């Protein structure tokens, strides 16, 4: 394990206990649903009970007449005010779906689509009234399956398009057709990744409060990016942005799902404006399943070409993604990311992947931890195992032959992204050692003689983090900034407040950002506070906490702003001590003249003088507040190798994970415990996606999985204890060397466990071509029907 050399201070890299924990542990946190305002009304949504229908009429008279009801909104009302559409932020050239209605007015296109919203004295009354809204639906033909949606004669979700294709996007390098035609070995598979979703334990929620002045509005939102929400809200409601304030209080998990701004949140604001009273809307779990963004559904037809030694010659892939009835806020961004990250850590030149995004009568698809990279890794790593089996090569050996080496970095991948730094082969070797790969290969053979089916699965990925240079956001069509904007202010007591536009949804930013700041300023960790989640008090940054960017972009901004404060401290201390600034050292809360330990001032003494401004050097502005707007030069790429040993019970289909190891590298670690928490938490979600979680629609577009009885999340009895190894090779172009680590854990498990299951069932010739690997799915793989 190498350690970053340029570590700025002791606090960076320390396992500091989190600053945010005491309030969370003692019930004193404040989530959106804890916000209770005088005179507050409660909203409930009337949702379509069918997947596709023309709305003949909507009768709200009974609801409006119900005692305790204050307002009812339907699509017609919004259209009359010109506010009914939600914009898509990530738009590809030629993309047909660039906005979606807040409330369906002519046609409902998926089960659970909002048709009306009610504000009433209580949630009970609001629900009663929502049930009294009479909608006359004329059912239309339903298309649920994305492949079927491409067939001639399929029902059209948006008839004016003429087909169900949202957009096609191609990523290409080299000469893949020739490479495949000439290759000695080509493996081909059809691989499916199921529809699943993030499912944070806190559902979405909003509290809107109208202000006293014209256009004033305050909105508390369970959201990952309050500034972006504010920009959107102001635009959707045609409000002056400077009168709008958005707060993200404590947020109970986001995982991408709360990256989005949703129609219900804007509608809650509209109800507050209309009634002149605060309005609260809290999503219930059933609404969450039908109306928060789904994710990940893709169907790949992929070919991988290699020579006899297993050297990859090219990858040709076509895939369909099911966007749902409309593009969500992030459009087809996750699948565009799949195109970018499919080559993974492997060395090859010839590549083409073609995405066809399709609409169906299902809920819109959007962001979920991994953002297309889970699917990319599932597909690429499945193909690596298929190739190993074809060539009768050890899958670890095959990977080692193809992994990009440290000497080859930085290197542009065939998808056009420049991987910056790392040691992929070392990560794999470490992971193999952690699971005792050679030992298990021997035990696997021995136990097979007893009829026991042991499988070993490997899988690695490179992960795009630190999003990103703003100009690169433009290149991929993502209408969002890539910089981070922070201010660092030292008060007259010498304590420090960091103001940042990002917003934590559990990752521990109050801790990690404070560690960076305290390291730079030589003050105790406890002397740094981090203010976030409020657009009125923090600098503008519309990207928010998404795409594993907080450490790699926000952390750098905090570091650089803190350095400016430190520099000013030294300048002022030099003035007060009558020394040269170059001779003043800042450490352990003191500013000391080099070689003269007795000539010193405390940070607090200097901070007091800075605030008083009675005796400043010529030209120095009063106070100690510095701003940094950091826009990275490049993306930075984390990576990891996962390895698992499983046992499959062929009689029951039950899978037991015997060993699971992760070796990862996110550059310089700010707080290893926080990093490990991100990896292990992501891993649990990845295991859920590999083994349990699936959003299942029937042929009529009814969602069958709308409670935790049907949509199974992994619990402590399913998630294994993990052996974790760290590499720590700094990011190449990021001051501080930080890379992102928020998503990585969730990326590899479906690939790794699919590879392990196929390995365990190799004797029966099973091919794992989809997830989730439920006991039923594994049983069918282990007990194939005899050929007729």
């Amino acid at each position: 394990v190498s350690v970053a050399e340029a570590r700025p201070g002791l606090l960076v890299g320390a396992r500091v206990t989190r600053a945010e924990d005491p309030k969370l542990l003692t019930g004193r946190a404040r989530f959106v649903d804890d916000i209770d305002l005088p005179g507050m009304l409660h909203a409930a949504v009337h949702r379509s009970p069918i997947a596709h229908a023309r709305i003949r009429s909507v009768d709200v008279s009974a609801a409006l007449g119900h005692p305790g009801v204050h307002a009812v909104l339907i699509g017609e009302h919004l259209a009359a005010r010109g506010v009914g559409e939600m914009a898509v932020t990530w738009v590809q050239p030629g993309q047909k779906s660039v906005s979606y209605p807040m409330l369906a007015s002519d046609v409902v296109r998926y089960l659970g689509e909002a048709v009306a919203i009610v504000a009433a004295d209580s949630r009970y009354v609001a629900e009663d009234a929502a049930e009294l809204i009479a909608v006359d639906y004329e059912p239309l033909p339903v298309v649920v399956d994305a492949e079927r949606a491409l067939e001639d004669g399929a029902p059209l979700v948006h008839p004016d398009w003429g087909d169900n294709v949202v957009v096609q996007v191609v990523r290409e390098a080299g000469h893949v057709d020739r490479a495949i035609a000439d290759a000695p070995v080509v493996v081909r598979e059809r691989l499916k990744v199921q529809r699943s979703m993030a499912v944070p334990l806190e559902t979405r929620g909003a509290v809107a409060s109208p202000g006293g002045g014209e256009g004033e509005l305050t909105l508390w939102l369970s959201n990952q990016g309050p500034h972006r929400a504010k920009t959107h809200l102001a635009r959707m409601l045609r409000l002056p942005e400077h009168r709008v304030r958005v707060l993200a209080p404590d947020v109970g998990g986001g995982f991408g799902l709360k990256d989005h701004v949703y129609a219900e949140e804007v509608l809650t604001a509209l109800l507050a404006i209309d009634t002149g009273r605060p309005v609260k809307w809290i999503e219930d779990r059933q609404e969450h399943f039908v109306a928060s963004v789904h994710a990940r559904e893709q169907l790949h037809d992929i070919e991988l070409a290699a020579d006899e030694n297993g050297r990859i010659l090219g990858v040709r892939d076509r895939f369909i993604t099911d966007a749902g009835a409309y593009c969500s806020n992030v459009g087809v961004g996750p699948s565009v990311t799949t195109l970018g990250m499919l080559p993974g850590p492997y060395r090859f030149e010839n590549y083409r992947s073609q995405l066809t995004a399709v609409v169906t009568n299902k809920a819109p698809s959007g962001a979920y931890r991994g953002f297309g990279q889970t699917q990319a890794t599932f597909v690429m790593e499945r193909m690596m195992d298929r190739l190993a089996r074809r060539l009768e090569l050890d899958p670890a050996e095959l990977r080692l032959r193809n992994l990009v080496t440290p000497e080859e970095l930085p290197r542009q991948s065939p998808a056009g992204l420049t991987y910056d730094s790392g040691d992929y082969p070392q990560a794999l070797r470490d992971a193999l050692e952690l699971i005792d790969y050679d030992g298990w290969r021997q035990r696997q053979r021995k136990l097979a003689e007893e009829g026991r089916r042991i499988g070993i699965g490997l899988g690695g990925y490179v992960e795009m983090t630190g999003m990103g240079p703003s100009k690169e956001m433009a290149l991929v069509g993502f209408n969002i900034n890539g910089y981070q904007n922070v201010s660092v202010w030292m008060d007259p007591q010498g304590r420090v407040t960091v103001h940042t536009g990002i917003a934590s949804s559990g990752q521990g930013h109050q801790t990690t950002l404070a560690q960076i700041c305290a390291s730079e300023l030589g003050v105790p960790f406890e002397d740094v506070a981090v203010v976030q989640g409020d657009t009125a008090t923090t600098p503008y940054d519309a990207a928010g906490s998404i795409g594993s960017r907080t450490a790699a972009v926000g952390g750098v901004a905090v570091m650089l702003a803190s350095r400016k404060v430190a520099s000013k401290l030294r300048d002022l201390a030099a003035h007060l001590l009558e020394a040269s600034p170059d001779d003043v050292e800042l450490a352990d809360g003191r500013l000391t003249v080099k070689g003269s330990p007795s000539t010193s001032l405390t940070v607090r003494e200097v901070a007091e003088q800075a605030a008083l401004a009675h005796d400043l050097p010529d030209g120095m502005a009063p106070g100690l507040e510095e701003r940094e707007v950091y826009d990275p030069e490049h993306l930075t790429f984390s990576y990891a190798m996962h390895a698992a040993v499983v046992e499959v019970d062929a009689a029951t289909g039950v899978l037991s994970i015997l060993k699971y190891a992760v070796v990862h590298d996110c550059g310089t670690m700010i707080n290893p415990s926080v990093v490990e928490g991100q990896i292990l938490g992501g891993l649990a979600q990845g295991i859920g996606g590999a083994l349990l979680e699936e959003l299942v629609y029937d042929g009529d577009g009814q969602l069958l999985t709308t409670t935790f009885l049907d949509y199974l999340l992994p619990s402590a009895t399913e998630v294994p204890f993990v052996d974790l190894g760290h590499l720590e090779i700094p990011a190449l172009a990021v001051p501080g060397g930080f890379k992102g680590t928020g998503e990585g854990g969730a990326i590899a498990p479906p690939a790794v466990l699919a590879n392990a299951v196929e390995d365990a069932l190799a004797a029966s010739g099973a091919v794992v071509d989809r997830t989730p690997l439920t006991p039923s799915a594994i049983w069918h793989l282990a007990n194939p029907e005899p050929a007729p």
Partner: protein
Amino acid sequence: MSARSMKPAPFTLRRADSVDHALALLGDHGEDARVLAGGQSLMPLINLRLSQPALLVDLNGPKELHYVCTADSAVRFGALTRQRTLERDASTAKHVPLLAQAVMLVGHFQNRNRGTVGGSLAHADPAAELPTVAVALDAEMVVRGRDSTRTVDAKTFFQGPLTTALEPGELLVEARFPAWGRASSYREGACTILLDGHAVRSCIVLAAQVDGAEVTTVEGLSDVTALSEIQQAFADNHALQCGFCTPGFVVSLHEFLRDCDRAPTSHEICVAIGSKLCRCTGYQQIVEAVTDAYAAMLASAEVRSAA
């Protein structure tokens, strides 16, 4: 509790004084009435408005259906026997071991503190443990109407998903499992509180049902300045991230650790928190925190020492 989890349609709650009283209420209201036993299945349906009964007959008052006894080569469970009682009952473990094992898979122990044997059987969820075991072991159901009592074998009793042979006005009063003789349900459990010292999920207990009971929330487990051993161990082990599920874990572990008479193994901790959902941490740090918390509690003599 918040609007997030409880927003049922209007209903009338009647607390039965006795089984006869309950039968009279059921007889008077027919199909409009539902029996409220532990509420672990019915209350979520009511909260989600998937079930909208006009009348709820609360059976939790009378004690006459709380019993486990052995007679005529069968272990007999009064319908209101809590699953937690069954789980800890020596005669069940000895004479109906499959049932004793299966009940451990019912939700988490907060569910079992409140959930009843009869409630689970009468709800007839095909994914639930007790109906499956009842069919497998040829159990018998004792069913009372206002004027009659009949015994129905399990295969006849269960007619389909959520459907039983119970007629309107009838009540399941006892289940008989012959002596000697997996599926799971997950709910998040973030709303867990202590009701008279036992962990229950507050979002599916009616306020009227806790009249006179002692309710402890996470705020009551420590003061602001000093964390409890469990809370401190969570912080030390990074066993929380967003913190939304954390109070539920802390409260239920308070009961779990209080009742431990030796250091729990990792497996026992996993089972204790199994089907309690955390979406951030991946559980490993929570298990480590529980191990640490036990040691700390032992050290401060808050746990019964093995010595």
